[in-house]
């Protein structure tokens, strides 16, 4: 007989069911689901309706930052964004051609590649991402050196930026439904996380935009493919993930608190 289950003649207890680590489920009610998707549609409509003022605010904040950081800007020009959602404003920051890019910037690109290669050699987990970034820098160097057509002025860059970011702002509420409104046990907290992510997304877009303009002004297009990848889609993914992870952290604490109080009932 296995001594672990020996009961000394007493009836065998139900030994195998012990409190499990997980909350069994999180069930958004029908009204919660309707409220969540309704909120997303409303936010989508509101952002679309106020697209022009929002883009103007984005440009105004970027202008302040450009002035503050001393990046020269000859002014702002109206650009087409999408039919019905325009005009936006794009800056006229001077961008040097490859031949005019300073030696320091070129050296910076080489140093950047070396640093990334060293990191990929030392941190195996970083290897694939690092190698991809090195490829981006390499493609950029070759592209700039060989193809004369590889040109991008600040105006077009601003236009592309607004086209992408405006859509991210408009669609983010729908991502917010899945990431914040439905998993959160309390709707108001879900709404708070959603609003926070949305606001952060807007402000972070201004920061990234100005940083890219600065890089364009001082280094031309040398770092642009890398910045496009790292500060574009990847960046949007990262900050959404960051907010999602924080909201899960907070929601989990709430859920498990409720579970503990339930378990402590006599």
């Amino acid at each position, binding site marked *: *007989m*296995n001594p*672990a*289950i020996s009961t000394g003649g007493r009836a065998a*207890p139900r*030994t*195998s*069911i*012990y*409190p*499990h*680590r*997980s*909350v069994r*489920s*999180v069930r958004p009610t029908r009204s919660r689901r309707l409220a969540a998707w309704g909120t997303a549609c409303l936010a989508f409509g509101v952002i679309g309706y106020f697209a022009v003022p929002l883009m103007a605010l984005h440009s105004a904040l970027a202008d302040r930052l450009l002035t503050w950081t001393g990046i020269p800007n000859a002014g702002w020009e109206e650009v*087409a964004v*999408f*039919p*019905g*959602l325009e005009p936006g404003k794009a800056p006229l920051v001077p961008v040097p051609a490859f031949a005019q890019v300073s030696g320091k910037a070129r050296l910076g690109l080489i140093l950047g590649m070396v640093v990334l290669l060293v990191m990929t050699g030392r941190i195996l*987990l970083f*290897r*694939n*991402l690092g190698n991809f970034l090195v490829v*981006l820098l390499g*493609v950029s160097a070759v*592209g700039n050196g060989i*193809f004369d*057509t*590889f040109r*991008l002025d600040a105006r*077009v860059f601003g*236009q592309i930026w607004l086209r992408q970011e405006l*859509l991210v702002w408009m*669609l983010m509420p*729908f*991502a917010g439904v*899945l*990431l914040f409104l*439905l*998993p959160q046990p309390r709707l108001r907290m879900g709404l708070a996380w959603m609003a926070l992510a949305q606001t952060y997304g807007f402000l972070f877009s201004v920061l990234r935009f100005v940083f890219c303009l600065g890089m364009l002004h001082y280094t031309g297009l040398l770092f*642009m*493919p890398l910045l496009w*990848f790292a500060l574009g*889609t990847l960046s*949007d993914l*990262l900050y*959404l*993930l960051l907010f*999602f*992870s924080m909201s*899960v*952290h907070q929601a*989990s*604490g709430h*859920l*498990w*608190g409720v579970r*503990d109080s339930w378990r402590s009932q006599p």
Partner: protein
Amino acid sequence: MVLSMLFLGAYALRHYYLGYARMRLEHPREMNEFVGFVMPRVTVLVPMHNEEKVARDILQALVKCDYDWELLEVIPVNDRSTDGTRGIVDDFARRYPFIKPYHRLEGAGGKPAALAEASDLATGEIFLLFDADYVPGPAVLKMLTAPFADPEVGAVMGRVVPHNIGDSLLSVLLSLERCAGYQSAQQARFNLGFTAQFGGTVGGVRASALRAVGGWNPESLTEDTDLTMALLLNGWRTAYVNRAECYEEVPRNWAVRRRQLSRWVMGHTECLHNYWPDLLQARFLSRREKADAIFLLGMYLTAPLIVVGWVASLVLFIIPSAHVVPVLPVAMLVIGYLLFSNQATFFEIGVAALLDGTRTRALLMPLSLLNFFANTGAICHALGKFYWQRIWGSGGDGWYKTHRTRLGGEGPEVGAGPGPGGAARHRVRGLYSADGDGERG
């Protein structure tokens, strides 16, 4: 490009669907109702190849399980070990009569071949399997046998929980990945009526079902996935028991992880090629079940498509005319696709962390991006090798045993006895305890 987006979009939708379904649906209780009442004769198979670092831990854990010894048979399959594994196994066999070692001295290498031979010697109605680095809790054997009360169940899968999550950043990230794989994906698929995936460890198979589908496939690199599909095609269900937790050692460095992943990718993709025609033609599987099985087998094909997407976006970036996309619906579709598909896998991780209460680790989710990039590269490399071998007939991998890093006496210690404190008495060098993971507060 469009095809790649459609393919990846379908996988993203699947991630959201499974994650959301797991969040909403409770796991079925009926399986747990049989725990302790279904006690068939069980054979526990533990394949071992040079496992002296971990052999003692698992055998000790199995001895401490609360399954009746008279209905239990443990067969440590010593597969041509050249270290001290044989001595450890024989020592346990001398002390416990239900431990009946099988020393394999020759024959084809690899776990499937070893299992095929050992299964012929087994006398149990149910075969339970554990890898040598796993440490089953006291109640796991009863939990894994309970679903076999249902005669349609041919195999069962338990939950794998990493115990060495404090070892490195990689092991923490892998714990998040496991969390999503089991708590979200496996449970959701079982809840939704799809077949769970038998993982070849922390699981079991009905001996008669195994014989009915022709036994283990010694040619396969992933004999577990192969068996899952064979069972599915022959009308058997694979059940998933989230509560049947077993502690494992996840790779703590990328070199080990890469080789492990490589074997999984090649084995999985091989199963896709072997089974997709039969799956499509299976008469008693619904369309949803067929789609789910093919999605499951084809999941590693997403990696090269992701890389194609990155390269395409880089090319588009360099072509000036591609910057002007004024068609709103097209642009919205592209941005929406990027926004939603990139988040999809992380949604599953988030849901699992929410349900598990792994609060601190949830904060590390953004770092999973590193793991994502690393996995993508490794999967592409493995797929390249697989198709190279398929076309030219050479260059593929053989069976590779995951390298163990546990030191003697350092590993988990299984508590004496079951019950609410049983799992808590595991000495695990991580954040888990019996309920939740000790991170709450």
